[in-house]
C-alpha cells in the first residue's frame, strides 16, 4: 500500500529505490545476455514493431514543463536522444542507434521500415498507451521523475552495466556479429548518458515533487513503470 507521506527528496528517492530492489528480486532487468541469436533477432523485431516512442513521451514532458530552466534541460535531453549529429556531434538518434544494432543481426532497412509502420505487439501497445498517457496527463515533475525507473537502472549498479556490455560484446562476437561496436552502440551510449539523465530526474524530484499529492503520484507512477516488466 503506497502512502502520501511527505518526505524529503533524498528520503523519497531512497524509498523508490527500495521498490526497485523488491521488484528486481522477481523480475531482473532484461538485456540480451544468454539469448540465442534467433531470440535477439526476435527481440529486435519486436522493438522496431510499431515505431519508436521516445520523442512522444520525452516530448510530452517538454511541452508540459512550466519551469524554463528545467524545460530547456529537457530540450537538451530531446537533443541527446533525438540525435547529437544534428548539431555536429557524433551520436545519431535513438531510432537510428536501434537500426545500427539491428543491421548487425541481419535486419534490413526495408524490414525495419515495414516493422515500424506495422502494429506493435499487444503488450507493447498497452504499455505504451499507459506510458504516453502518464507523461501527457501527469504533472511534469512526475513525468520527468518517473524516468528514474529505466535510466536510474544504470546508476544503481554501474559495474554490472559495464560487465553486461562486456559479456554481450563477447557473446555477439561468438555469434559471428561483424561490427560488435555498432551492435552494442545503443547500450554503450545509454550506459553513459542515462546516468546524466537520471541525475536530472532526481534533481527534478528533489526540487519539485514536494507535496503529499505529488509524492503519492510519483510512488504510483514509479511502481507501475517498474511493473512494465513482469505484468
Amino acid at each position: 500500500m503506497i502512502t502520501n507521506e511527505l518526505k524529503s527528496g533524498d528520503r523519497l528517492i531512497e524509498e523508490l529505490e527500495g521498490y526497485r530492489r523488491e521488484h528486481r528480486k522477481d523480475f531482473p532487468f532484461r538485456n540480451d545476455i544468454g539469448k540465442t541469436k534467433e531470440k535477439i533477432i526476435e527481440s529486435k523485431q519486436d522493438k522496431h514493431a510499431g515505431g519508436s516512442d521516445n520523442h512522444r513521451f520525452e516530448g510530452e514532458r517538454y511541452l508540459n514543463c512550466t519551469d524554463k530552466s528545467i524545460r530547456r534541460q529537457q530540450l537538451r535531453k530531446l537533443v541527446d536522444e533525438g540525435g547529437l549529429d544534428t548539431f555536429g556531434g557524433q551520436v545519431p538518434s535513438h531510432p537510428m542507434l536501434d537500426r545500427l544494432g539491428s543491421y548487425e543481426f541481419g535486419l534490413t532497412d526495408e524490414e525495419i521500415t515495414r516493422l515500424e509502420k506495422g502494429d506493435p505487439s499487444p503488450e507493447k501497445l498497452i504499455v505504451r498507451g499507459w506510458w504516453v498517457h502518464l507523461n501527457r496527463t501527469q504533472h511534469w515533475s512526475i513525468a520527468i521523475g518517473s524516468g528514474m525507473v529505466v535510466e536510474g537502472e544504470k546508476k544503481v549498479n554501474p559495474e554490472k552495466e559495464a560487465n553486461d556490455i562486456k559479456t554481450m560484446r563477447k557473446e555477439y562476437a561468438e555469434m559471428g556479429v561483424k561490427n560488435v561496436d555498432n551492435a552494442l552502440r545503443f547500450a554503450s551510449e545509454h550506459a553513459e548518458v542515462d546516468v546524466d539523465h537520471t541525475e536530472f530526474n532526481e534533481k527534478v524530484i528533489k526540487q519539485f515533487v514536494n507535496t503529499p499529492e505529488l509524492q503519492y503520484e510519483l510512488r504510483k507512477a514509479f511502481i507501475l513503470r517498474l511493473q512494465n516488466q513482469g505484468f
Partner: protein
Amino acid sequence: MSELPYGPEDLKEPALSGDAFIRFLHDEKAKKYPDPPPLVQSIHDGECSKEHLKLWVKDMYLYWDHAMVYSTGAIFVKTNDEEVRTQILRKLVDIEGKEVVNDLTGWTTPAYEELWLRFGEGLGITRNEIQSWKSFTRTHYAITALCMLSRWWEWTWLDGIASLYAGDLHGRDTLGGVGEAMKMHYDVPDKSLEFFRVYQEDVASHIPWEEKALAHWCCTRERQLTAARALRKRLDIENQLLVAPHRAATSERLPLQVP
C-alpha cells in the same frame, strides 16, 4: 501510435468499396484472433473455477464502470457528423443506463456497471469486493491505453468508430454464450444475468450503424488503413483485458496489481 506514417507506396491503391472494406475488417479480425480468448473458452466449457470467475468479474468492473463510458464519450466529442454522433449518444445511454431517459421513454434498464455488479452478486461477490478491487496491472494498462487513444489525437473520430465496432464485435462473440454458461455450469440465478441479455441486444443494435458509417466515411485508402489499424488495436486491448484473469487461473502466482 508511434508507427511510421503511410507513404505514397502505401496509398497508391484506390480505396476499397464500402462493402469490401467491411469484409476486409472482418478478415483482419479473423486473422488476428481466430480463436476465442482462452479465458472465455474455459468459461464456455465450464472449466474455469468459480474462484477465478470471480477474479474476472472483479477485474472487469473498471471496464464497464469507466473505460466504456470514457472511451465512448471521447469519440462522441470528436464526431461532427450528426447522424453518427446521435448513434453514439444512443450508445452512451445504453452504457450509462437507459433509465437516464426514463422520463421520455419509460425505460428502466440500469447502467452496465450496475448490471455487472448484480451479476457479481449472483456469483456470491459483494459490491464492495468488486468496487474496491485493485486491477491487474495489465488490465490497468489496457484500459488506460483505450481511454488515451480514444480521447486524444492518436485516433480520429473515424478510427474511433472502428474501435467501437471492434469492441462490439468482440463483445458479441466473447460474451455471447457466457450468460448461458453461467446458468449451465455455475448455478448463477437467471435474475443475475440481465447484463448479458441487455448487452447482446444493445450490441446487435449498434453493429449495423457502425458498419454503415465505416463503409460510407472510410472513402479513401488512408482512412481505411488507419481505421483498420484502430480496429486491430481495439481487438488487442480487448484481448489483453482477458489475459491477467486467465494467468491467475493458470499460474501459481497472482499477476501484478496496481499499487
